[in-house]
């Protein structure tokens, strides 16, 4: 009986947890609840994925109103995959948050932190699962508003400025999205994505549809930090509390990519977006620029969080590049990179959070000689760094391999070469960490208090292990991605 209501529970459980936390007003209870709910949402997501694999698309009519009159939750191989990623990262970040939050935030704000964390989780899951364009906007705002607060809770006063900038950019992005949806609604009369897709096929007046495509693309690109709309991201990631950075880097941008995929392939249709319009060239150019320039900028950062934030911009470039390839291997690379990069970045930011806890700042000066003071943390960063570069045997290799295959399938060998070349830049910035941690003497006066607490180290290493595991056994990650690509290229959602 519970089985059929899983789609609703997926979102409602974290959503109800948030007000409960406010009523309880107790940090330890809030933490316990957050951990329990995160794990529950992972279990639900996995159960949904299994249901989809055995029984096909799940449609759940909220309020028992049939779509398109009511709001429909629609789970297929693609968004079940995204739900699992979000659930997985949340389950790892929630236990990790306790030590980090205890150290970084004043006590009376602890329970509010977990409240915001639950809302952000509910928002992201809601975006991924819904089959209704306007409902997507509502959950987008839930996740965005909670994200602004989470970033502003950072220790440094710059966190406030970063949160403000993100609030402005995020709201512009969301409003663009609403304008796009408005135009589509005026042309089709419906808000249900599947219904919209089928009715769009019969629309002959294309100008509003084109404008809608443009507004939705720009709006979502602001959220996913596609180059050159990425400038809010490094500040936000660098200033937010460590668990927030890890959670956002691994999930928020990925969910936005999902939205883009959903609109391009399921609503507008790949043929419309990529064959009738020069969108392919545009997305391709921006992706390559992102991958190359952001990687370069990353090399010259003095702060580890900032460096990995720029690296995120570059990695998002790889994902959108895979989208622009519009073939089976390229898309599989893009979707599997969603997952692999999510896992890799979660591992990196969780480990960097441990360093921040011990040394205060994470500049390269402070990191010098870290290999001796925090050997496990340093080793973890090196392994996850290898995955970031795309070394064989790690998760990152799998995604880049498929991206290169996708490029070669189209006969664009120069693109394949660019993917490999830009990975070499990643070698440069990961090497900077290796050099600082293992080859340099620690700066005098840096407190050496050993490893991060186990509560942080264990979740972080789980993610590091995942980086290696998904590099060796690809049956789950790649298998899920292939099923998702079949949905994308199959047409209807």
């Amino acid at each position, binding site marked *: 009986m519970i089985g059929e209501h899983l789609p609703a529970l997926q979102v409602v459980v974290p*959503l109800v947890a948030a007000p409960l936390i406010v009523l309880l007003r107790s940090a330890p209870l809030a933490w316990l609840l957050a951990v329990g709910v995160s794990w529950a949402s992972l279990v639900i997501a996995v159960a949904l994925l299994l249901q989809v694999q055995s029984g096909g698309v799940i449609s759940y009519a909220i309020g028992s*109103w049939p779509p*398109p009159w009511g709001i429909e939750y629609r789970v297929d191989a693609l968004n079940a995959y995204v739900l699992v990623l979000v659930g997985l990262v949340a389950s790892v970040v929630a236990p990790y948050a306790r030590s980090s939050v205890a150290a970084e935030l004043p006590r009376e704000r602890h329970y*509010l932190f977990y409240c915001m964390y639950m809302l952000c989780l509910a928002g992201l899951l809601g975006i991924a699962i819904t089959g209704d364009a*306007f409902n997507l906007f509502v959950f987008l705002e839930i996740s965005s508003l909670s994200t602004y*607060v989470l970033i502003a809770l950072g220790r440094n006063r710059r966190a406030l400025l970063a949160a403000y900038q993100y609030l402005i950019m995020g709201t512009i992005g969301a409003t663009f999205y609403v304008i796009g949806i408005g135009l589509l609604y005026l*042309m089709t*009369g419906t808000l249900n994505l599947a219904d919209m897709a089928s009715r769009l096929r019969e629309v002959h*007046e294309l100008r509003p549809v084109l404008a809608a495509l443009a507004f939705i693309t720009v709006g979502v690109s602001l959220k996913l930090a596609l180059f050159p709309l990425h400038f809010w991201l490094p500040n936000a990631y660098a200033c937010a509390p460590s668990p927030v950075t890890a959670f956002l880097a691994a999930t928020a941008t990925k969910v936005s990519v999902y939205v883009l995929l959903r609109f391009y392939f399921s609503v507008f249709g790949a043929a419309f977006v990529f064959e009738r319009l020069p969108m392919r060239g545009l997305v391709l150019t921006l992706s390559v620029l992102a991958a190359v320039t952001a990687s370069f900028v990353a090399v010259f950062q003095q702060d580890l969080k900032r460096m990995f934030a720029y690296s995120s911009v570059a990695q998002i470039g790889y994902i959108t590049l895979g989208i622009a390839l519009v073939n089976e291997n390229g898309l599989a690379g893009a979707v599997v990179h969603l997952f692999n990069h999510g896992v890799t970045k979660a591992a990196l930011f969780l480990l960097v959070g441990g360093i921040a806890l011990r040394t205060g700042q994470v500049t390269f000066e402070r990191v010098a000689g870290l290999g001796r003071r925090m050997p496990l943390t340093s080793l973890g960063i090196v392994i996850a760094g290898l995955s970031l570069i795309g070394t064989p045997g790690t998760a990152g290799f799998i995604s880049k391999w498929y991206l290169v295959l996708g490029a070669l399938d189209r006969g664009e060998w120069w693109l394949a070469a660019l993917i490999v070349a830009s990975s070499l830049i990643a070698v440069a910035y990961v090497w900077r960490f290796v050099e600082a941690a293992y080859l340099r003497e620690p700066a005098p006066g840096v407190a050496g208090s050993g490893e991060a607490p186990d509560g942080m180290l264990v979740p972080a290493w789980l993610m590091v292990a995942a980086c290696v595991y998904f590099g060796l056994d690809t049956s789950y990650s790649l298998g899920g991605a292939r099923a998702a690509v079949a949905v994308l290229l199959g047409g209807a959602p």
Partner: protein
Amino acid sequence: MVLLTMMAALTVAIVVQRNLFAVVVLAGIYSFLMATVLVALDAVDVAMTEASVGAGISTVLLLAALFLTRGEEAKPLLRPLLPLVLAMVVGAALVYGTLGLPAFSDPDAPIHVHVVPRYLQEAARETDVPNVVTAVLASYRGYDTLGETTVVFTAGAGVIALLRRARRRDGKDVK
């Protein structure tokens, strides 16, 4: 149509005016005009909300924030040209889009023939509520409204998280 033109004029005033108190008051008037336009367009529920939120709550919040900061804008403009061009490009994109939309008050437009007829014809019977806006809001699309309530909740909890004073163990505020 006159109202719309007045709104446009007010917007210009808001852009130009540098005294922030004046801007806040103008923004309040702007909201009232918007509410009037909405009544003319038959959106009475929306008008009521816009009047109470836009002209009421927003104004109070803005004034409260102004008391806490300061009321004068320091510099007229940073780099006026680039933002203007950007905004114009976005506007042009929207103009391009609206050109293909169905004409005003066209009863055969897609939004009037698809989905909505059921609301208008059946809502009173299916939900026992004659105000269709309420029926759609709370029932057909009730889940959106749950999300909307959660948005409000998020804002409330967020403001508490941001503005609560840090307290020391003895209960005094930390400066």
